[in-house]
């Protein structure tokens, strides 16, 4: 409807004069003079007065809206270095990071939340400012440990850094070390980056990887929410809610973190530019019946119509569509050698979308499926030829649910509270998402989103994967769950706009809980600069091929030497972790170098009910027995080296009880005396 045909609501205007009626005009000939065409005649005013004038330029915003969010964001960022300087991380307990944080850190988080809320409440929210506010929010919440801790947390992040180091050596993943080397895409990628940059370690990357990758995830959630929710504010709220509900902490330096980026990229393509919908062009009501008063059709006919109706087509030009196909196929192909589970999650989601006709390019499903099958059958052949039990499950392995939930409910009060909060958060997420699915159904008659969120739960059948499976299942569904939750919250707020204040308060509580939950294990997941330096020094001093083992599998014990120093927890006979039965296991494994970290001590105290000083007692007894000597001691950190010549491959090791045994020819020189001076102080 153009401005000329729009009615003002009054009676019909008076009939136009004779001169304004439609007239036949002679087509101009080649010699006709140029004639002007008269413009439209203004309509006469109706009985209610003249039509409203067109809207003028928007009124200028109040300085509060113009400068409020930027000032809050700058203040939040400025407080972060002060928070890092004033936080005391030296004695974290069972509650983890939260009690150790400086009040300035909490103020920075509050300012970041205020920045987001102020810009969202602005009459005209600015997209660049919202993006900056989201970045600051991520930095002050997910990135808080990266800010206040000088090194990356998590043993697994350092372990994967060690995998990258192993691949960077000669470009070939070592065999017989760890099952994850059969999916070496991520390790090869970072080994290439490392070599190209001329670096020999990735410590800084490890430290800042979580906030960086969560920022990328948030972009994906924002893009998905724009497609599914529309509007200008709701997609940003979806991104913030995703950050707030992402307690799962699969965002450390790991293959699955990168795989989620690829998954979100493909999903954004499928639900965005490739999105289609079965629309009956003939006007026959499809399924479900859109209006209550519409005449019902037989169910079989509705299903038949729905199935036979071809999806409509995207309006993008062909070249853009082809470029999107190429990028999506590239992501799907890259997923296969990167992570074990993520390809199955995205294939399942694409299959659902293809069945209901929601995206164009169903060949992508075939490409993804064939890629995974080819890679597993050919590329990961050694894996399933030797470790098929990881797929089928063994009789002595606990299920994923048991390992992911029941086995973790232990520790002191702080640990138990944090773990119960981890149980409550997924429940809250699913509750909100189901409410959002109902709102989405009422609004768009669509149940596909909740199906997309539920598809990854099918992977729970792989019970042999271990306790992390539940975390991955939650993570794969979290973007869609978050978007549905935002739809529910939007419907809740639209009832009464005063509820927006309640939502702002809930956002503060959510992010406080996020800090508490994510940092709940930092008492024993914290890694210090001393830990890293001590470990590197231990590897530098270890002879080639010597076994280097940690007392327990925390700390950066495998940041290098993977494949060379038998440093993975691989001892048999219940000795995968030496601390489970320290003296028997140490006698059995006979590590050449034994690593002790403060995190091991904390883990035993806050998680396993050990008495303070238990690692020191083990260390002192090992030294007193003459088996080991300390080459480094400082507090709970220590490096013990075995007092015996190195065993030669193929030659049985000499009996440790026979001090006068003759060392085999070519053996390394005998270790120094046990009373050699240690490099550090004693605890």
């Amino acid at each position, binding site marked *: 409807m153009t401005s000329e045909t729009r009615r003002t609501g009054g009676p019909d205007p008076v009939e136009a004069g004779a001169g304004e009626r439609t007239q036949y005009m002679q087509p101009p000939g080649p010699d006709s003079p140029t004639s002007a065409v008269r413009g439209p005649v203004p309509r006469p005013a109706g009985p209610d007065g003249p039509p409203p004038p067109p809207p003028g330029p928007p009124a200028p915003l109040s300085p509060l809206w113009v400068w409020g969010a930027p000032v809050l964001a700058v203040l939040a960022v400025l407080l972060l270095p002060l928070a890092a300087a004033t936080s005391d991380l030296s004695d974290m307990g069972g509650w983890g990071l939260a009690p150790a944080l400086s009040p300035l850190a909490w103020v920075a988080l509050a300012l970041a939340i205020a920045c987001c809320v102020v810009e969202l409440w602005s009459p005209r929210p600015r997209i660049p400012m919202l993006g900056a506010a989201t970045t600051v929010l991520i930095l002050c919440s997910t990135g808080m440990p990266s800010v206040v801790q000088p090194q990356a947390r998590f043993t697994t992040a350092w372990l994967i850094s060690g995998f990258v180091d192993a691949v960077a050596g000669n470009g070939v993943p070592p065999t017989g070390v760890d099952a994850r080397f059969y999916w070496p895409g991520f390790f090869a990628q970072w080994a290439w980056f490392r070599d190209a940059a001329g670096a020999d370690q990735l410590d800084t990357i490890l430290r800042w990887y979580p906030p960086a990758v969560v920022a990328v995830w948030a972009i994906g959630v924002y893009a998905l929410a724009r497609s599914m929710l529309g509007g200008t504010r709701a997609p940003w709220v979806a991104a913030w809610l995703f950050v707030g509900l992402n307690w799962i902490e699969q965002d450390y330096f790991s293959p699955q973190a990168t795989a989620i980026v690829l998954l979100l990229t493909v999903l954004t393509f499928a639900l965005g530019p490739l999105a289609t919908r079965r629309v009956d062009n003939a006007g026959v009501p499809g399924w479900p019946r859109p209006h209550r008063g519409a005449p019902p059709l037989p169910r079989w006919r509705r299903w038949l119509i729905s199935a036979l109706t071809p999806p409509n087509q995207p309006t993008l030009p062909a070249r853009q569509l082809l470029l999107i196909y190429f990028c999506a196929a590239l992501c799907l192909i890259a997923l296969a050698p990167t992570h074990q589970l993520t390809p199955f999650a995205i294939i399942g989601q694409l299959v659902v979308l293809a069945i209901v006709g929601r995206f164009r390019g169903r060949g992508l499903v075939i490409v993804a499926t064939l890629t995974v099958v080819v890679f597993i059958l*050919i590329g990961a052949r050694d894996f399933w030829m030797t470790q098929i039990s990881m797929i089928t499950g063994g009789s002595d392995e606990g299920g994923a649910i048991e390992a992911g939930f029941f086995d973790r409910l232990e520790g002191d009060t702080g640990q138990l509270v944090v773990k119960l909060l981890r149980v409550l958060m997924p429940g809250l997420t699913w509750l909100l998402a189901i409410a959002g699915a109902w709102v989405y159904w009422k609004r768009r008659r669509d149940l596909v989103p909740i199906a997309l969120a539920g598809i990854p739960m099918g992977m729970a059948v792989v019970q042999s994967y271990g306790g992390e499976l539940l975390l991955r299942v939650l993570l794969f569904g979290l973007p869609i769950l978050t978007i549905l939750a935002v739809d529910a919250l939007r419907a809740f707020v639209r009832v009464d706009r005063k509820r927006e204040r309640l939502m702002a308060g809930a956002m503060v509580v959510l992010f406080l809980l996020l800090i508490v939950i994510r940092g709940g294990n930092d008492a024993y*997941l914290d890694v210090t600069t001393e830990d890293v330096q001590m470990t590197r020094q231990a590897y530098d001093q270890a002879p080639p091929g010597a076994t280097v083992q940690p007392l327990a599998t925390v700390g950066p014990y495998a940041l290098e030497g993977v494949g060379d120093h038998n440093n993975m927890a691989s001892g048999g006979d219940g000795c995968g972790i030496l601390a489970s039965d320290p003296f028997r296991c140490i006698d059995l494994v006979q590590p050449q170098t034994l690593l002790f970290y403060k995190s091991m001590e904390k883990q035993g105290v806050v998680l396993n009910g050990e008495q303070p000083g238990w690692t020191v007692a083990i260390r002192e007894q090992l030294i007193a027995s003459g088996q080991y000597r300390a080459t480094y001691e400082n507090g709970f950190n220590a490096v013990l080296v075995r007092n015996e010549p190195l065993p030669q491959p193929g030659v049985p090791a000499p009996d440790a009880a026979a001090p006068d045994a003759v060392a085999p020819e070519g053996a390394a020189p005998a270790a120094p005396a046990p009373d050699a001076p240690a490099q550090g102080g004693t605890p």
Partner: protein
Amino acid sequence: MTGFALTWIVFLLVLAVFAARAWVVETNRGRLSTAGSAQRGLTVAAVGSVVLLVVMLTANGGIELVDLLINGEATVTAPSDQAATGGQQPGEAPPAPAPPPADPAN
């Protein structure tokens, strides 16, 4: 090894045929000749290449994998870690260490 290499080559062939078909389908979208001979031919080629790939996969590992899955056993020839994702995960509790030993002096 030749079979594996041939399987990878057939897989690349499948990708190439799918790409060519997508090009023909999308660049002809909206025209009257949407189901031309090129599109029909490429559809047949895509189906044929997929069938060929499935045959190659079946011959190069597929039968063995199915056999292993049915029997549920395999000869372990390489050591592995204790779990598919060994190492400490957030919130993961390792086995409880033994209590500290008594004072050696006692």
